[in-house]
């Protein structure tokens, strides 16, 4: 039980962290270069529509079976909310504030680091929060590829026509999603509050 829960949290934490590392720069990129917006967001959208089992089938030749295939699939699914919210957050910064920064002689890098990212932090974090909550649910599919997690109970329950086993996986997963949502929501509120 604790092992599977630990695996589940590990899958979600690692994949969301990787998705944030890739998604944040991508979001900044599409906010800066309008030409990139359609292809990047379009691709992230397309990824979102691939059924997870099909994605695993495509990834087996690359990553084999086990945790890395599951993590890479979860990263693919987590990208869209993070990229899009970063983009929306940064483009939503008041142009007057940006002009004021430029007027103070800030470089593009400083403008991003000191003005845009802090002001967009709330929206970006919402994206990470959505990605995390969605990942907790999708990570149950990792059990289809030998990567463990709470999905093991669900798959075992479905295979043996056993409601109790299914609930033993589904209920902790749901609680985990609620907990992740609450914790990240708290962090988000603190961030926004600090800015005021």
């Amino acid at each position, binding site marked *: 039980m604790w092992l599977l829960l630990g695996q589940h949290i590990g899958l979600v934490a690692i994949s969301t962290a990787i998705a944030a590392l890739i998604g944040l720069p991508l979001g900044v990129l599409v906010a800066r270069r309008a030409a990139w917006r359609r292809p990047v967001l379009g691709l992230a959208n397309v990824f979102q529509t691939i059924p997870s089992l099909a994605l695993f089938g495509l990834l*087996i*030749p690359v990553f084999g079976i086990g945790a890395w295939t599951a993590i890479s699939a979860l990263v693919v699914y987590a990208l869209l909310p993070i990229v899009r919210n970063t983009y929306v957050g940064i483009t939503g910064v008041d142009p007057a504030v940006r002009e004021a920064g430029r007027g103070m002689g800030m470089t593009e890098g400083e403008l991003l680091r000191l003005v845009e990212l802090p002001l967009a932090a709330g929206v970006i974090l919402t994206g990470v929060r959505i990605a995390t909550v969605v990942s907790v649910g999708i990570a149950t599919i990792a*059990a289809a590829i*030998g990567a463990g997690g709470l999905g093991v109970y669900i*798959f075992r329950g*479905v295979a*043996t*026509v056993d409601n109790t086993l299914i609930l033993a996986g589904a209920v902790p997963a749901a609680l985990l999603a609620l907990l992740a949502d609450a914790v990240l929501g708290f962090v988000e509120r603190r961030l926004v509050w600090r800015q005021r």
Partner: protein
Amino acid sequence: MKRVLLLALVLSGCAKRDRIVVGAKNFTESDLLAEIVAQHIERRTGLPVERRLHLGGTFVCDRAIKAGQIDLYVEYTGTAFTAILKQSPIADPDSVYRFVAAEYASRFQLHWTAPLGFNNTFAVLVRHADAQRFGLRSIADLGRVAPRWKAGFGYEFLERADGFAGLARLYGLTFSQPPTAMDLGLTYRALADRRVDVIAGNSTDGQIPALDLVALIDDRGYFPPYQAAPVVRAAVLEKNPAVRAALAELGGKISDAEMRRLNALADVEHKDITEIARAWLAERLP
């Protein structure tokens, strides 16, 4: 008041029962058999048949038929015996069928019609090249190489009473690491990509010849029989005797080899299952 309610129930039941709803589990063979059964009922009785194919496995089909959401689906005797009725596996096909039919009739008001003829048992599969190199013919031969090999199995095979634990005990199998639990469909991919060396599939799968795999012989007779037969709600048969007659005609008509060929048509040659079913019915039951 009670009587009125009952009458209303019966009447609404009548109105809805003009069509037969056929379900299937989420793999090709189940879809194919459902399509064959559906078309055959349409041809013989003229009743409209609704298809609810590719539902989520034994679990979902079982729940759906007990709730009256579907009227029939094709089930396997061994699966009903071990997974639904939670019995320990036994080897004799006839006693399994008789037991399952009697239990289903008395407990669930579900009727098992005549078996279709083939037996879709578990098959322990290895790559053809490995089988040749190590001279593997039976599961007993597997014991020699298992300590250096990796296995990947579906959850059903790992969990069931007639699955891996008993097999490993009977044949003394130990692999280099505990078998990887994964989705059944993905095990074929993993074997073909050499990520694992042994999997357990279904003996009638079209993928076996397509991916150049070999099914090892169960020389100690471990796996119980899995005869396929339509399971129908008894109420439906009472109301429509023609459906009963149509289903009886299908009894014993599909051999192991025939089923493997039909599955391969769908999985390997990617033919449409509606067409496969139509062609097969035209040829075998004109």
